[in-house]
C-alpha cells in the first residue's frame, strides 16, 4: 500500500507543476495587467507598482521565483485586493466547503440509491424514470435549476430564502442546485457499474447457493458495482467544494467561486494562480483518497498495484 501511495503522490506533484506552468503562462498571455483601471494613473506610479510585485522582471525570472514561492506555500499578495492570497482563500473557502458538503450529500444521497434501484429494476418503469431524470439532471445547467428553485420553491415557503447565507437552512436550495448534476451523473455511473457486476458469473454462483436477492445486492454486488462511482467521486468532491461561481452568485453565498471569475477579469494573476492551484491541490488530494478507497474495496487492485510498485 505504501509504495502505491508514494507513487500516486509523486504523480500528483507532477500534475500540480504542469498546472502551475500552464496557468502562469496563460495568465501572462492575457492583455493588460492588474493595474489597468479606468482611473487615470500616471505611468510612474504604475512603474512603482510593477516593481513592488516583481512584474518588471523578465517573465522567466518571475516564473522561477513564483514557482519557488508556491513550493514553500507562499501564494503572494493580490495586487488588486492588496491582501495575501492565502488570506482571501481562507476567508472564502469555508462557505464553499460547507455548500460543497451539502451538494455531496445531495449527490450521493440521490444518485447512488437511484442507480442501484435502476440496475435491479432494469428496463422497468423505475429504471426508465430514473434515467430520464438523470438525463435531465445532466443536461439542465445550474443557472436554470437555481432560479427555478428560487421562484418555484423559495417564494412559496416561508422558512426558505431566495438567497442569502445566514441560517443553516439557507444551505438547502444551493446544495440541491449544486449537487443535482453530480447526482444525475452518479446515478448513471452506479447503474452501469451495478449492471456490469450483476451480469458476472459469481452472481450466478451466489444465486445457485440460495442467497436471497437482497443479500446478493448488498454483499456480492455493491462493492464491485460502486467502484466506478468511487473513482468519480474523488474529483467530483473537489469540484463541489472548490466553489461554483454560478451557484454562489445565484444564492449569494460568500464562497470561493467568485474569485475564479473575478481574478481573471481583473487580470489579478496572483489571486488567479492561487485559487487555481488550490483547486488543483484539492483534486490531487481527492483523487488520492478515491484511489485509497478503491484499493480498500477491491482486493485485486490492492495486490497488483503494490506488486507493480515493488
Amino acid at each position: 500500500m505504501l509504495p502505491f501511495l508514494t507513487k500516486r503522490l509523486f504523480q500528483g506533484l507532477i500534475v500540480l507543476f504542469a498546472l502551475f506552468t500552464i496557468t502562469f503562462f496563460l495568465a501572462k498571455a492575457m492583455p493588460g495587467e492588474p493595474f489597468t483601471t479606468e482611473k487615470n494613473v500616471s505611468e510612474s506610479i504604475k512603474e512603482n507598482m510593477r516593481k513592488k510585485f516583481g512584474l518588471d522582471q523578465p517573465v522567466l525570472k518571475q516564473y522561477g521565483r513564483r514557482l519557488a514561492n508556491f513550493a514553500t506555500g507562499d501564494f503572494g499578495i493580490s495586487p488588486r485586493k492588496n491582501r495575501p492570497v492565502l488570506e482571501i482563500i481562507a476567508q472564502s473557502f469555508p462557505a464553499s466547503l460547507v455548500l460543497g458538503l451539502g451538494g455531496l450529500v445531495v449527490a450521493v444521497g440521490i444518485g447512488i440509491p437511484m442507480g442501484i434501484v435502476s440496475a435491479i429494476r432494469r428496463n422497468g418503469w423505475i429504471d426508465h424514470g430514473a434515467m430520464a431524470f438523470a438525463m435531465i439532471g445532466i443536461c439542465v445547467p445550474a443557472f436554470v435549476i437555481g432560479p427555478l428553485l428560487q421562484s418555484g420553491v423559495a417564494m412559496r415557503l416561508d422558512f426558505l430564502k431566495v438567497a442569502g447565507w445566514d441560517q443553516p437552512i439557507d444551505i438547502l436550495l444551493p446544495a440541491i442546485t449544486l449537487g443535482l448534476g453530480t447526482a444525475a451523473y452518479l446515478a448513471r455511473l452506479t447503474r452501469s457499474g451495478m449492471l456490469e457486476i450483476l451480469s458476472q458469473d459469481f452472481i450466478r454462483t451466489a444465486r445457485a447457493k440460495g442467497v436471497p436477492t437482497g443479500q446478493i445486492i448488498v454483499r456480492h454486488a455493491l462493492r464491485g458495482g460502486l467502484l466506478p462511482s468511487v473513482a468519480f467521486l474523488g474529483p467530483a468532491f473537489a469540484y463541489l467544494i472548490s466553489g461554483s461561481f454560478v451557484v454562489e452568485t445565484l444564492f449569494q453565498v460568500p464562497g470561493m467561486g467568485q474569485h475564479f471569475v473575478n481574478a481573471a477579469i481583473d487580470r489579478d494573476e496572483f489571486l488567479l494562480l492561487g485559487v487555481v492551484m488550490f483547486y488543483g491541490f484539492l483534486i490531487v488530494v481527492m483523487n488520492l483518497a478515491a484511489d485509497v478507497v478503491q484499493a480498500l474495496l477491491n482486493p485485486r487492485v490492492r495486490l497488483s498495484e503494490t506488486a507493480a510498485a515493488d
Partner: protein
Amino acid sequence: MPLLSVEDLRVSFHTRNGIVRAVDGVSFTVERGQTVGIVGESGSGKSVTCYSLLGLIPKPPGRIEGGRAIFDGTDLLQLSDPQLNTVRGRRIGMIFQDPMTSLNPYLRISAQLVEPLILHEGLSRAAALDRAIAEMAAVGIPRPADRIHAYPHEFSGGMRQRVMIAMALITRPEILIADEPTTALDVTIQRQVLDLIKARQAELGTAVIFITHDLAVVSEVCDQVNVMYAGRFVERAPVNELFTSPLHAYTRALQASIPALQTKGEDLYTISGRPPDLSRPIPGCAFAPRCETETRDQCLTDRRPELVEKSPNHWVQDCPGCLGPLRGNPQS
C-alpha cells in the same frame, strides 16, 4: 421413485431475432447417488436444461414454456424465487465451468464458503468457519486454516474449482449439478478435479448431473448418458452400452471425434457443418443436414423423430436416416 424426474421440459428465449427454443421437450430422471451425463455441443441446450431447474436462467428473455421437474414431491418449475432458495445451495448444489470468474473476487474465500451454512443451516460464524476449513481439507487444499482467508485471485484455477466443489457440497446436497467443471482447466488439473468429484460423490452419496461436451470425461464418470442435440435428447443409454453400441448418427460422429481414438498422423475427424439455428422451426430431423450415414436421405422431414426404447434402457430418436450405417466407414 427417482430423486429428480424431469418431464417434457421446454425453455425458450424471447429475443429480438425471434424465439429461440433452447430446450424443446427434454425428459430424464436422476436416481439417488447416480451420475447422469448430458453431452452435447455448445448451444445444444444442456446448460439451459440444468439452469432452468434452479431458476437460474435470466427472465426475461428466458421463459419456461412447459414441463415438470419433480424433486422430492415438489415441482421445481412452479416454485417462487424465495422458495427455490430453500433448495438451491442446500439440497441441490452447483459448480460451473470457469472457476476464474465463478468466485466473487471481492470477498474472501472464507466469507463465500460459510455463506450456505449460515443461510441454510443457521450456523454461527465460528461453527461455519470450522466446517468450511474441514471441507477445504476434504477437497485437498493444503493448509486450509490459513488459505481460507485468502481472496480468490490468490488461488490457481484448479484450486478455485476445488473451492467451488467444497462450496457446493458443504451442505451435503442430494444432487450436484456440474456444468462443464473441467472444461476451463489444464489437462493435468482436469484429471484431478474429475477424480475429486468422483471421490466426494462416493463418500457422500450425492447424485450428480454432469454436463460436458467431452465424451472421454463422460465415459469415466457417468452411469447414464443423455446425448443432446438442438434442444432435444437424441440418445440415452447406460454408459457402457452407449460406447459399445451407439445407435444415433450424432452419437457415433461424436465418438469418432474423440482425438485419442483416432489414428495418429491423420487429420482429426470433425462433424461438418454447424448446429441448426434454434430460432427457426425445425420441421424434421434436426441432425439431417450434418448426417453422414448411407441412409441420410431417409431422415424425417415432415415430423420430429420420437425417442423410442430400442433395447432395454437404450433410447434413441427414431429417425430412419440417422440410424443407418456411416458412409465410407466399414467399422460401423
